[in-house]
C-alpha cells in the first residue's frame, strides 16, 4: 500500500516547472513526497529544496529511518538545493548506514552530485538511473498520487 506522508508546494508550481524546463524563473518552494513501498522507501524531491521545506525534510527523514528498509531518493527534478537540503541528504545517508541500510539517489542530477562531492559526502550514497519501464511506471504513479494530493491541498485549483 502506498502511503503519501509528506507534501509541500502546489500542483500549480509543479505544472509551471514542467512547462518551463529545469531552470524555472518561479520562486515557488520545492516539494517533498515519501512513499512506503514493499522493498524500499521512496523519497521524491522536486524543485528548489531549501530552507523553506526543512520541516518536510525532517519529517521525511524520520519516516525513512523508522521504515527500516533501503531508501531510494529521486533527485532528477531538483533545480536548486541549499545547505539545508544537502544536510538532509547527508544525515539521512549516515542515519541509514548506521541502521544497516543504504541510501540510493536516483539521478542524474549533477548539481546534487557536485555538492555532495564538495562536502566530502559522496562516499555515503549510491547512484542509480531509471533503467526499465517498470520503474518508470512506479515513479509516474507515485507522482500522479502526489499531484492529486497537491491539488486537494491547494483547495481544488487546477
Amino acid at each position, binding site marked *: 500500500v502506498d502511503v503519501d506522508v509528506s507534501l509541500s508546494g502546489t500542483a500549480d508550481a509543479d505544472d509551471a516547472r514542467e512547462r518551463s524546463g529545469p531552470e524555472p524563473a518561479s520562486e515557488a518552494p520545492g516539494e517533498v513526497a515519501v512513499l512506503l513501498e514493499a522493498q524500499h522507501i521512496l523519497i521524491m524531491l522536486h524543485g528548489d529544496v531549501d530552507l523553506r521545506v526543512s520541516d518536510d525534510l525532517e519529517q521525511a527523514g524520520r519516516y525513512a529511518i523508522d521504515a527500516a528498509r533501503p531508501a531510494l531518493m529521486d533527485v532528477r527534478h531538483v533545480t536548486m538545493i541549499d*545547505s539545508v537540503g544537502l544536510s538532509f541528504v547527508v544525515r539521512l545517508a549516515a542515519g541509514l548506514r548506521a541502521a544497516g541500510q543504504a541510501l540510493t539517489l536516483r539521478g542524474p542530477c549533477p548539481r546534487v552530485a557536485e*555538492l555532495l562531492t564538495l562536502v566530502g559526502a559522496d562516499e*555515503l550514497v549510491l547512484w542509480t538511473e531509471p533503467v526499465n519501464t517498470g520503474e518508470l511506471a512506479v515513479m509516474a504513479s507515485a507522482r500522479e498520487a502526489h499531484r492529486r494530493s497537491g491539488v486537494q491541498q491547494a483547495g481544488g485549483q487546477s
Partner: protein
Amino acid sequence: MSTELLRATRPAGYWDRRCEWPVSSVPDAVTARSRARAVVAAGEPDPAAVPAAQPATRPVFASATARVEMVLGELIVNGLKHGGSPVTASLSRGERGWMLEVADPAVDAVPAPAGPGADPADPGGLGLRLTIALAEAVGWYTEGERKYVWAMVPDEPPARLLATLGGR
C-alpha cells in the same frame, strides 16, 4: 587563493555596487538569491549554447551564476540565523568577478565554518563550508554596529573547485 575565512578583513580592490536587497525573512532571501542569479546570468553565455571547445561534462558550478546563487543564499540564511534580522545583501561587480556581501547586526557573532575534516552529517557550518568551496575568498569585518560577511566569486571557477569536481 584562500580556503579559509579571512578574519577582520575587507575585500581588496574596487567593487561597483550593482544591487542591494533588505532581507528580513526567508521569502526575502529567496527573492534576493533569484535576482542575483538573474543579474549574473545576464552577463554569462547562454548555457544552451556551450561552445564546442568546452567539454560536455562541464560541472554545474563552473558557472558563476550557479556559484553566486548558492553563495548568496547561504550567506543570507547564515545572517538571518546567527546575526538576526534585518540583514542587507548586496552584489557588486569587479574586474574579474562578483563581490557578495551580507551585513547583519550581530557584531559579536563570528562566522565559523565546519572544518575540512568535520563530519559532513553535522549540519552546523555546512553553508559556510560550501561558500568557501565555491568562492575564491571569503571574509568578514565589522563597521559600527554592523558585521559584514563577504565572498568573492570569480567569473572563472577556482582551480581547486574544478580539481575537486573533476575528480568525481
